[in-house]
């Protein structure tokens, strides 16, 4: 008999133990891999996957030469994790050193029972770097897109502004929100144990599409000239405000649109909506004598009047429907051309009467009064031009001299551009093209004809008369040396909101014109609201027109039509680099 293996029992015991161990492991494996599989996979995903919403940058806005007027930039925002802070007060004190928030305020936020609080949002990049340099636990920075308007108040009323969350709230920012805003995209990133993003996710995926870039018809330099001259005049006359629009008459493109007082779109928080409203197209006013241009256009087109037709100006007082119309200077027999040049109310009233209600209304409507110009900016008003059936006995005379009608400065300059443009009324526009992030043109806008209220012949005749209004009429201060200017002044009494009647002290002085008269490059309207002292359009608004035109025309490369009489000579013996005394002859 073989001797019993003394180790057999032990071997068996070890084997059984091992078996049991393996069974236990198998059971655990079964539990983990099959029973709890779904739950654990999800848990792992939560740990190494991070889903973030990324927003494409908002598109920029630039002027016609590509100068940046509005752009987005990623700037730091500082947040805190109150639950992981031991000493909120000392952290708050440190942060208050570099952030524009008071320590007390930061401390209050950090003591909240929350896992995430904002401390300061959309800061300057430098402030973000300072916070990071402090390297405080429980405090972090993230980048968020912030809208910047690098030129400050320049063009603010047109650009509008975007809110803290990046949506356009006013102006072009609002009108073109749809094309400016970037796409939002949910991106899932895989991270390793150290929190680094792991390949290959994200390589083939495209990031969110950024918003489109908008190119305006505005010229930054002309805009600056317009704003500077308008602000100076508003300040000099202590006026309530003012408006200037410069348009390219041939196309209807807006070159400059200035509204005074200005505001800075970078800090709009404390301003009332009244300050940022684009009054050039939202507020209608009684234009006064500038309306006579279009009454005259109708009379010329209908052949009721010719430039040398004689009108009796009633020696300054003319009775219409139990009221008396006055002229600012007593005149007897005057020609139709003189009626415009001297701005005779009585002459204009008689011209309107000669036209009749239906024709006058038809022409004013054709010039675009009482309807929106359809410019691509939001908030435009149609103004006021009543239907002839609602006209009173005096209406025909009143409307002919620019009362009982409400026009926006934009309507006025658009209608004047039609006179400059051989009778073609164009649709004003302010955005010329939209490009995507790669620079490809997505949409383009050019000039669009709306209709033709008057013929080329009428437009030319009227231009001749309007040139006279500048060379020998009320608009003499609009004359630009070296260039032929056509234009007309307007001085309108405002309705006193208290009495409901025309105020003897509140006026709107305006001038609308174009230059050079023979091949117009610029149509400009200048409106000065409630100037103190002298309120005549020829005194307050015509000089604004001149100063803008005399700077903008050389800038646009428009040569003077007449030979320039003023020249300068160099004194003999002056070398290069030495100071040169300029002498006007």
């Amino acid at each position, binding site marked *: 008999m073989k001797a019993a293996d003394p180790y057999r029992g032990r071997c068996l015991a070890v084997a059984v133990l091992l078996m049991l161990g393996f069974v236990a492991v198998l059971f655990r494996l079964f539990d983990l891999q099959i029973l709890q599989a779904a739950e654990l996979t999800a848990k792992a995903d939560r740990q190494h996957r991070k889903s973030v919403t990324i927003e494409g940058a908002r598109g920029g806005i630039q002027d016609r030469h590509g*100068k*940046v007027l509005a*752009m*987005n*930039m*990623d700037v730091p925002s500082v947040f805190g994790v109150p639950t992981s802070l031991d000493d909120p007060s000392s952290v708050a004190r440190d942060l208050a050193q570099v952030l524009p928030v008071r320590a007390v305020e930061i401390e209050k936020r950090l003591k909240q029972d929350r896992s995430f609080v904002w401390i300061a949002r959309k800061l300057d*990049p430098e402030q973000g770097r300072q916070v990071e340099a402090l390297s405080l636990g429980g405090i972090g920075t993230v*980048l968020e897109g912030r809208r*910047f308007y*690098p*030129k*400050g108040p*320049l063009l603010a009323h047109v650009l509008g502004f975007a809110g803290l969350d990046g949506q356009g709230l006013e102006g072009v920012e609002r009108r*073109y929100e*749809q*094309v400016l805003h970037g796409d939002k995209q949910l991106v899932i990133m895989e991270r390793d144990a150290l929190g*680094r*993003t*792991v*390949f*290959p996710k*994200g*390589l083939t995926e495209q990031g969110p599409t950024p918003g489109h870039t908008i190119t305006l018809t505005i010229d*930054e*330099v002309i805009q*600056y000239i317009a704003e*500077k001259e308008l602000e100076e005049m508003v300040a000099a006359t202590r006026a309530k405000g003012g408006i200037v629009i410069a348009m390219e008459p*041939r*196309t209807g493109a807006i070159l400059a649109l200035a509204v005074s007082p200005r505001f800075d779109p970078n800090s709009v928080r404390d301003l009332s909506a009244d300050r940022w409203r684009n009054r050039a197209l939202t507020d209608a006013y009684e234009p006064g004598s500038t309306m006579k241009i279009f009454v005259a256009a109708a009379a010329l087109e209908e052949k009721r009047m010719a430039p040398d037709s004689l009108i009796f100006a009633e020696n300054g007082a003319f009775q219409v429907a139990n009221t008396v119309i006055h002229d600012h200077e007593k005149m007897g027999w005057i020609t139709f051309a003189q009626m415009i040049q001297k701005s005779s109310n009585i002459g204009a009233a008689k011209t309107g009467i000669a036209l009749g209600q239906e024709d006058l209304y038809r022409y004013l409507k054709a010039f675009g009064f009482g309807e929106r110009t359809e410019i691509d900016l939001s908030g435009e008003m149609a103004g006021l031009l009543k239907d002839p059936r609602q006209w009173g006995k005096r209406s025909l005379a009143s409307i002919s001299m620019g009362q009982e009608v409400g026009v926006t400065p934009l309507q006025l300059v658009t209608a004047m551009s039609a006179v400059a443009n*051989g009778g*073609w009324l164009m649709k004003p526009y302010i955005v010329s093209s*939209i490009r995507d992030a790669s620079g490809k*043109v*997505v*949409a*383009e*806008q*050019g*000039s*669009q*004809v709306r209709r033709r209220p008057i013929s080329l012949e009428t437009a030319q005749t009227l231009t001749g008369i309007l040139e006279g209004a500048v060379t020998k009429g009320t608009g003499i201060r609009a004359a630009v*040396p*070296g260039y032929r200017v056509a234009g007309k002044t307007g001085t309108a009494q405002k309705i006193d909101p208290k009495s409901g009647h025309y105020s003897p002290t509140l006026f709107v002085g305006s001038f609308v014109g174009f230059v050079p008269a023979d091949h117009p490059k610029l149509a400009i309207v200048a409106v000065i609201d409630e100037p103190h002292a002298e309120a005549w359009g020829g005194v307050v608004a015509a000089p604004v027109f001149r100063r803008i035109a*005399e*700077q903008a025309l*050389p800038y646009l*490369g*428009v*040569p*003077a039509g007449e030979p*320039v*009489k*003023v*020249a*300068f000579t160099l004194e003999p013996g002056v070398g290069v680099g030495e100071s040169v005394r*300029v002498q*006007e002859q």
Partner: protein
Amino acid sequence: MKRSRTVAALVILTMLLLYVSERISVVNVGYDIEKLKSQKVKLERERDEMKMKLSSLTAPERIAKVATEQLGMVPPKQGQVVLVRVEPENPKIGNPPAPEVRLAKYEPGGRWP
């Protein structure tokens, strides 16, 4: 028989090792790409910051202020800027004159927003 088995095992092992090393290098390249991406973002941010600065520094208002207040310059007076009309020697060469009235252009299929 035994030898061919050893060879097969070696081949399989080599392939496995190759596969693993490839995986590792793919992951490393991934990290490199991520690093370059974040560097690109950083550089783009820097570029935007400079673009902003350039734009605000070239604002006409600022230039006029510096020119008049610091450099003692004055705007040109009437007649100091003279523009001269230049007629091309051969009028046939050069751009044709722009038509009197241009009509609106749209990209095919593109709708104005």
